[in-house]
C-alpha cells in the first residue's frame, strides 16, 4: 500500500513546488534560472539512472540514451523539418528502442560484465556520432537546432517545460515506487535469487527499468538539444556518465529524492566554485570525497537522519527504533511442540489437493551433470498431493541439486520434471514459482536490508498485477493488491510469532528467527508445493521441535512439502515417504520405517562393513 504522505511532507512538497513555480518571478538573476534548467535536465537523467540502481544495476552508458535522444530530435528538426512535439517523442521512443535492444543483450549479464558492456555501448555510440559525418555532422556538430516553439524566447518557457517534465517524472516514479513494480524492484535489488523463487521475474523488471530509464533520458536529450541549440559529440563524453553516477550515488541511490538533490547540488556546486578558478575541480573532488566519507548512503538519507534527530530533540519524543534492542528467547519464535499456532492462516491456492492419490510433481530420469561430475543421475520419484516427502542422503548426494533443478534455479542435463502435467524443464525460476512451487534455501536467503514485515510484503509480489499502466494509474486492482500484501504480511507475522520483530531489519534478526522468516516468505507467495532445503540446519533442539510443528501445520493446511534435511529425528517424525540419494543416484524410497532398515541406506550413511 502506498505510504500516505504525512501532513508535514505534504506542506513541504506544496511549498517546494510553489517555490519552483514562482522561481522566475522571485529571482531576476537569469544565471540562476539557467542553472535551474540545467538542474532539471540532470534531475531527469539522475532519476532515470536511479531506476536501474533500484534493480541493482550499475550502468555506465546513460549518456548513450541521452545523446541518442538529443541527436534524433536535432536531426529530425533540422534536417527533415519535423515539428518539435513529434521529434521530442521520437527521441524518447528511439532511446527506448535502443534500451530494449541493449537490455535484451546485456541484462542477463551481471556486475562487472554489465558495467563493461554498457560502457562499451556508450563508447560505440560516441564513435558513431563522431564519425558518421553524413548524418550527425561528426565533430562539427549540429548548429541552429530550433527552439521547441517560436514563443520559446528567453529562459522562462524552457524553465516551465523542464519543470513539467521533472514533476511528471517524479510523480510517476513515486507512484511506481509504492506499487507492485516498486516492491518487485526492491525485492530484486535485495536478493534476486529469492525474488525469482517467489515469482518475481528479475529480467522482466530489469528490462522495464531499462526501458523507462532510456525513455526519460531520451526526452532529456531532446530537451538539451533544443535548449542549447547546438549539439556535438561532447554530449557523449564519459565525464558526463561519471557526473550522473555521482549525482545518484552521492544524492542517495535507490531513493526518490536522492538523485534530485544530487542533481541540484552537483549542477550548482561547480558553478559556485568558479571563484576558486583552476582549483575548482580539485576542491570539487575533495568535497565529493568528504561527502562520501561522512554520508556514505548519500546526502538525502543523511538529511533524513538529521531531520529525525532534530524532530526528536524538539518534541522530546523518540521515534520507533528500527531495530529492537533485545530479542525474545528463541523458543518464543514458535508455538510449542504440538500446539497449534494461535491464528491459523488459510493458505489459498488454485488447487487444494487433499487427495493423496493425486500426483503433484513427477521427476523422471533426472540427470544433472557438471562436466564429468554426475551430481544427479537417472533419479525418478514423484510427489503426491498433501504428503511430506523427504529427500535425504550424505553430503554431496545431490539433494539441493534436485531442488534447484525443480525450481529451475539450477540446470537440468536430461530427464523430465513435470508439475500437474505441465513440464517445468523449459521454465524460468519465477515461472516455476508462479505454478505454486515455493522454496527455501540451504543458506538463509532473505531481503536483508528491509524490515521483517516488508520481507513478507515483498513476498506477496508474484500474486499482484504487473502492468505498468495499472500501477501508475493506481487502479483498483493494484490498490487492492497492496492491501492484500499488507494483510497477508501481518497474518504471517502473527502466525510465525515474528510480530514483535516486524519493524526490525531482517539481517538483524537472530539466526533462528531468520530461518522462520524465510519460511514465512515462502508461505506468503501461497505455494501448493513447498520445497524446504535443510530448514533445521543450525537450529537448537527447541527450535527444531517448533519447526516440526510448523511443518506439520503447513501440511494440514493442504500444502505439499518436499523436505531436504539431515536431522534424522525431524525427517523420521514428519515424513510420509523418504527418498534416499547417494552419489547422485536414488538408492531407496519408502516409508520412514522401511528406509531406516534398508541395508543400502545404512551402508551409505555408515559405510560398508568389510
Amino acid at each position: 500500500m502506498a505510504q500516505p504522505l504525512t501532513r508535514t511532507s505534504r506542506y513541504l512538497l506544496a511549498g517546494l513546488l510553489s517555490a519552483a513555480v514562482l522561481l522566475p518571478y522571485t529571482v531576476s538573476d537569469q544565471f540562476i534560472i539557467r542553472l535551474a534548467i540545467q538542474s532539471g535536465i540532470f534531475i531527469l537523467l539522475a532519476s532515470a539512472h536511479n531506476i536501474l540502481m533500484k534493480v541493482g544495476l550499475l550502468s555506465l552508458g546513460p549518456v548513450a540514451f541521452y545523446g541518442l535522444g538529443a541527436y534524433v530530435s536535432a536531426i529530425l528538426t533540422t534536417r527533415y523539418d519535423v515539428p518539435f512535439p513529434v521529434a521530442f517523442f521520437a527521441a524518447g521512443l528511439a532511446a527506448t528502442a535502443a534500451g530494449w535492444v541493449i537490455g535484451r543483450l546485456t541484462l542477463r549479464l551481471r556486475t562487472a560484465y554489465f558495467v563493461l558492456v554498457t560502457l562499451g555501448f556508450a563508447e560505440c555510440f560516441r564513435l558513431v556520432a563522431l564519425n558518421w559525418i553524413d548524418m550527425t555532422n561528426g565533430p562539427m556538430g549540429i548548429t541552429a537546432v530550433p527552439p521547441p516553439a517560436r514563443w520559446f524566447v528567453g529562459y522562462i518557457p524552457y524553465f516551465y517545460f523542464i519543470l513539467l517534465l521533472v514533476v511528471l517524472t517524479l510523480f510517476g516514479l513515486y507512484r511506481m515506487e509504492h506499487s507492485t513494480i516498486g516492491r518487485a524492484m526492491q525485492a530484486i535489488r535485495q536478493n534476486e535469487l529469492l525474488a525469482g523463487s517467489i515469482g518475481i521475474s528479475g529480467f522482466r523488471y530489469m528490462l522495464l527499468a531499462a526501458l523507462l530509464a532510456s525513455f526519460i533520458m531520451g526526452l532529456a536529450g531532446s530537451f538539451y538539444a533544443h535548449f542549447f541549440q547546438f549539439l556535438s559529440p561532447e554530449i557523449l563524453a564519459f565525464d558526463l556518465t561519471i557526473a550522473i553516477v555521482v549525482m545518484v550515488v552521492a544524492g542517495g541511490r535507490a531513493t526518490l529524492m536522492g538523485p534530485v538533490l544530487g542533481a541540484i547540488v552537483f549542477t550548482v556546486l561547480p558553478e559556485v566554485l568558479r571563484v576558486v578558478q583552476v582549483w575548482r575541480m580539485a576542491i570539487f573532488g575533495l568535497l565529493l570525497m568528504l561527502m562520501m566519507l561522512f554520508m556514505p548512503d548519500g546526502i538525502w538519507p543523511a538529511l533524513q537522519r538529521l531531520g529525525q534527530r532534530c524532530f526528536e530533540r524538539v518534541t522530546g519524543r523518540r521515534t520507533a527504533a528500527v531495530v529492537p534492542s533485545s530479542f525474545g528467547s528463541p523458543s518464543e519464535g514458535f508455538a510449542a511442540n504440538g500446539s497449534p499456532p494461535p491464528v491459523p492462516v488459510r493458505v489459498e491456492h488454485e488447487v487444494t489437493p487433499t487427495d493423496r492419490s493425486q500426483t503433484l510433481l513427477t521427476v523422471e530420469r533426472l540427470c544433472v551433470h557438471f562436466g564429468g561430475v554426475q551430481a544427479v543421475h537417472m533419479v525418478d520419484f514423484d510427489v503426491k498431493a498433501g504428503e511430506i516427502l523427504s529427500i535425504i542422503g550424505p553430503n554431496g548426494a545431490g539433494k539441493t541439486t534436485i531442488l534447484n533443478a525443480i525450481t529451475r534455479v539450477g540446470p537440468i542435463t536430461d530427464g523430465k520434471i513435470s508439475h500437474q502435467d505441465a513440464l517445468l524443464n523449459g521454465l524460468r525460476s519465477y515461472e516455476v514459482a508462479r505454478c505454486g512451487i515455493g522454496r527455501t534455501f540451504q543458506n538463509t536467503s532473505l531481503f536483508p536490508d528491509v524490515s521483517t514485515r516488508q520481507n513478507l510484503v515483498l513476498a506477496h509480489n508474484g500474486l499482484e498485477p504487473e502492468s505498468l499502466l495499472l500501477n501508475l494509474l493506481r487502479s483498483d486492482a493494484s490498490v487492492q493488491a497492496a492491501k492484500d500484501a499488507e494483510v497477508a504480511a501481518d497474518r504471517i507475522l502473527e502466525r510465525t510469532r515474528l510480530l514483535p520483530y516486524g519493524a526490525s531489519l531482517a539481517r538483524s534478526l537472530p539466526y533462528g528467527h531468520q530461518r522462520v522468516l524465510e519460511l514465512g516468505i515462502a508461505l506468503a507467495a501461497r505455494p501448493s508445493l513447498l520445497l524446504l532445503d535443510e530448514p533445521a540446519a543450525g537450529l537448537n533442539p527447541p527450535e527444531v521441535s517448533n519447526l516440526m510443528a510448523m511443518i506439520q501445520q503447513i501440511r494440514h493446511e493442504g500444502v505439499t512439502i518436499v523436505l531436504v534435511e539431515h536431522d534424522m529425528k525431524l525427517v523420521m517424525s514428519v515424513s510420509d515417504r523418504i527418498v534416499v540419494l547417494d552419489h547422485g543416484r536414488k538408492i531407496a524410497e519408502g516409508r520412514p520405517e522401511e528406509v531406516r532398515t534398508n541395508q543400502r541406506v545404512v551402508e551409505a550413511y555408515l559405510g560398508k562393513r568389510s
Partner: protein
Amino acid sequence: MIQTQKLARGLSAVVLATLMATCTGSPTVDRTDASDALDGDPILFGVIAPLTGPVADAGAYVVSGLTIGVGKINAQGGVCGRPLEPIILDGMNDPQESANAAENLITREQVPIIMGAWGSSSTLAVMPVVARHGIPLVVETSSSDKITTPGTPGFDWVHRISPTSAMEAEAMKPYLVDELGMQRVAILSVNNDWGRGAGATFRQAIEEQGGQIVREDYIDQTVTDVLPQLTQINGSGADAIVMTTGAAQIATILKQYTELGMDQLILTTGGSNYPVAIMQLASPEMVNGTYHVMFYVPTEHALAGDPAMSEWYYDTYAENGYPEVGLGESYRGFDAAHVIAQAIELNDCSLDPESLNQALTRVEFAGLSGLVRFSEAHGHQSRPNVYLVRVDNGELAAVAADPPVEQP
C-alpha cells in the same frame, strides 16, 4: 575508529573553512591587475578560455597574450581613461561549461562584451547564450565556418579574428600543388571540428589545383600510436602529408614518421602549431624541412600588421617569463584585447552592448596577425595574414605570405 573519524572531521572543517574563506573573499583573483596609474572604475570584459582540461595549455597561452595586451592598453592610458579589466572564466573547452561561463559573465558580472571560447564547439554553444542576452562575442581561435554563417543562432553578435579553415586553404591554394609539388596528398588530422574542417577545405583546394587526395585519416586527440596510419600513407604512394592537430600530436607523428624513414613533404595547418613548440617536443632535426601554415610568425616582425609592436611584444613576452612554446598561440589574446578596447572607444566610451556590437564593425587594428577588421560581407569575419613557413635548421622562414585582401 572514533579517532579516525575525529581526525577526518577536523580535516574537513579546515578544508571547508579554507573554502569558505576563498569563496567569500573578493573574486579579484580572477582579474589581472589594472594599472594603478588609472583612476575610475575599470571597464570589465568577459573571457572564456580553457584553463583546465586537455587543452588548458593553449588556453593559458591565449590568456598570457591577453594579459600583455591589457597591460599595454592600461599603460597607455586605458580605455576612455579607465582601466580595462578582463574577467576570465574556465570553459574547459566543453560546450556546456562554456555556455554556463557565458551566462555567468553576462548576468553576474554584467560584462558588455566577451572574448572566447577557444574551440569551435564551445563557441557554437556560447553563441545562443550571447544572442539571448544581446552581448557581442569576439572569437579569437575557433575555425569552424558555421560560426560566421548567417542563420547560426548568435551570428549577429559574433565577430571573429581567427581565420576559417576555408580562408587558410584559399590563401595557400596557389602554393600547394604548383610550388610545393603536392600531387598525391594524404590528410592526417585530429578527429574534431578543427581537423575535419581543415581536412575538407584542403582537400577541395588541392583537388581544384589538380592534385589528388590519396588517403584521409582522422585520429583521436589522445592517440599516440600513428604507425598504422603512417604505414598506410607510405604505402599509398603519397608525396605529401597535410596535418591539422596540436603541436604535441604533430611531434608524436613526426617521431614515428622519422622512425619509418618516410620522406613525404609535411605541411601543418591551423596556425596553432608553433614550430618552436614542435621542435621542443620532437627535435629540431625532425622538424627540419617541414612546412607550416601560420597567422603570426613571432620572429618575422616585418610581416606583422605593426612591426614595431611585434618586436615589443616578442621582447615583453620573454620578459614576463611566459614559455616560448606558447608564443605562437598567445597573439590571439593580444589582438582580441586591442579589438575590444578599440570598439569601446569607437562607441564613444559607451558600454551599451548593442551599439558596441555595431562599433566592432568599424574596428581597424593593425595587430600581430595583420590588419584586423570585420567584413560584413564575409559574415563578421576578419582576414588575418596567412604565411607559409618552412623550418630550416631550426629557423623559421616565411616562404610565402598572403597579405590581407581588400574585401569588396
